């Protein structure tokens, strides 16, 4: 961090030892002024809440009466809640499904589109349209598509090919895949654009060389394209995992966590503890679960940082 090459210009001599008054009168004051927005904003909306979250996880409080310290009770209550295991299971299920459906699709689209000789712009614009629609609008629109009656939109389409009406959001077995399909539709375009850009940076000589060596198209994809994209593929995967670990909007709007809690996710459970009991939330349990989620996400973030570092130094 202090390597001389990176050391930005400090006013010569100002960093020498001197009394606090002198420091303030010279450029200390302006430093303080420049730091102020960050100190205030981070103080109130990052550092303080983090500390408060930790504190609250050991307290019982209803915001009206004086909070009571209850040791690890909140953590015990969360761990003993049958919804806890269920929400973790659901979140993992969502993440896995999102990987299965949502991970290969943008890559395939990107490869196909970047090979297009005509309509390249049209193709990528079409794929990108769902990204532009506000996510909430998409979900509300898909709720109508998922109308489970035989005259629902998707069920009508299925009936054309002789498939019976599906329950979509109204059944615990089909609800999660339904949510993931929408979410894939809504997000694939954005990831695809990343891959298209990455594909541009694959050196063409590599393809030419592979051609010369007699590689087929599929072999080129396997032996040239994918290895070249390895770094970005890994990173999008980690980012997707971090994002899916926090999924909330889709289950909240599609199903409210149902049917029978089959789409209750971890973040939803935090929200549920804190805000869904009409007589006042259990902020202690919400904080305790937040801490657990934070630890998990921090681990992933660390992996991500480590990966991006090695990736950027390797390439």
């Amino acid at each position, binding site marked *: 961090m202090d390597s001389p090459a990176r050391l930005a210009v*400090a006013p010569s001599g100002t960093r020498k030892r001197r009394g606090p008054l002198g420091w303030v009168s010279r450029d200390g004051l302006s430093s303080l002024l*420049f730091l102020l*927005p*960050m100190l205030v*904003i*981070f103080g109130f909306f990052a550092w*303080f809440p983090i500390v408060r979250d930790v504190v609250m996880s050991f307290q019982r409080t209803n915001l009206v009466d004086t909070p009571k310290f209850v040791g690890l009770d909140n953590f015990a209550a969360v761990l003993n809640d049958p919804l806890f295991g269920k929400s973790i299971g659901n979140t993992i299920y969502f993440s896995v499904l999102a990987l299965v459906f949502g991970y290969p699709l943008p890559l395939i689209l990107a490869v196909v589109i970047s090979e297009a000789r005509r309509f390249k712009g049209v193709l990528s614009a079409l794929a990108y349209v769902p990204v532009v629609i506000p996510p909430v609008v998409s979900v509300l629109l898909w709720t109508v598509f998922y109308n489970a009656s035989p005259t629902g939109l998707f069920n009508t389409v299925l009936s054309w090919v002789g498939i019976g009406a599906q329950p979509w959001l109204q059944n615990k077995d089909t609800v999660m895949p339904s949510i993931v399909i929408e979410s894939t539709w809504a997000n694939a*375009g954005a990831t695809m654009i990343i891959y298209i850009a990455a594909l541009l940076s694959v050196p063409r000589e590599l393809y030419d060389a592979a051609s010369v060596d007699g590689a*087929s198209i599929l072999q080129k*994809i396997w032996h040239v394209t994918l290895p070249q994209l390895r770094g970005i593929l890994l990173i999008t995967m980690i980012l997707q995992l971090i994002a899916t670990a926090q999924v909330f909007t889709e289950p909240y709007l599609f199903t409210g966590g149902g049917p029978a809690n089959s789409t209750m996710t971890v973040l939803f459970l935090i929200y549920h503890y804190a805000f869904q009991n009409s007589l006042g939330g259990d902020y202690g349990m919400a904080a305790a679960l937040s801490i657990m989620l934070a630890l998990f996400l921090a681990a992933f973030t660390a992996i991500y940082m480590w990966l991006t570092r090695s990736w950027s130094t390797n390439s």
Partner: protein
Amino acid sequence: MKTPRLPFRSNRTERPRQTVPDVHRGIVGALDWRFRRVRWTVRAIHAFTLAFLLVAGLGPLLWLAKSAITPTQDTLRMPLALWPHGFDLNYLTQAWSQTHIDRYFMNTVYMAIGSWATQLIVATTAGYALSILKPPGTRILTALVLATLFVPSIVLLVPLYLSIVDVPFLHIKLINTFWAVWLPYGASAFNVLLVKRFFDNLPSEVFEAARVDGAGPFRLFWSICLPMSRPILGVVSVFAVVASWKDFLWPLLVLPNPAVQPLSVRLPTLQPTTELNIFLAALAISTLIPIVIFLIFQRMFLSGGDVTGSVKG
């Protein structure tokens, strides 16, 4: 069929003749293109992709446009019939006047502009202080900022919410004001570190020269740092606007008053209490605006190459 035979080495440097547009060199190389089977397979795949994307990308929008002007019963019973019972543009005007989409859209815009501004202000001033001015304690402050990168704000939902309800020490209530969204957005460690890192790499000679000319810290910031960091500010801006555009949970919590709600919060509230045809008309209107913006700025969305080009290294 067999895999294509190895061509002669001399072909490598020669441009292939005819049929192949020579702009294109990618996975499907000139050599592959010479095979009829490859050409037709690739064309078939592209035709299929085009059809698929037309249905998946454009289909829902066209359907929404249709359903916005047909009666509820048609949507429920014959969703894919064109307009079995005619259409009525009145639903759109009704949706507009009954649901006040314009107001909620403007709220969405205010939310985005404000959070963009706070993020830029915090990121640039902090980046400047931590990278250029380097007051005592810089390392600790940087570490503290970095630490928050590991605690996604979403897990701070509850304490952050309580801070908005009653700002600690100051006892101000920010709920139902845009500040409740703008200010927490500013606490983005990612932005601060991104900008700091960028400033770290600005050429020091420029600063030396300016200082020799007698420029103070504010001049340096305003006339040297900011103009030179336009690319990174572009990055921060895009992130800021997109995140605010997509956010749902946070405004849902801190903006319970409909007068200040963005579209994303308002529409779900209206859903159970608004007739389906009017509601779909409202959805159609709220989709129209971003689609138009997208069409206008399409190139910016889909490429963005200029920005990277100018800041390589």
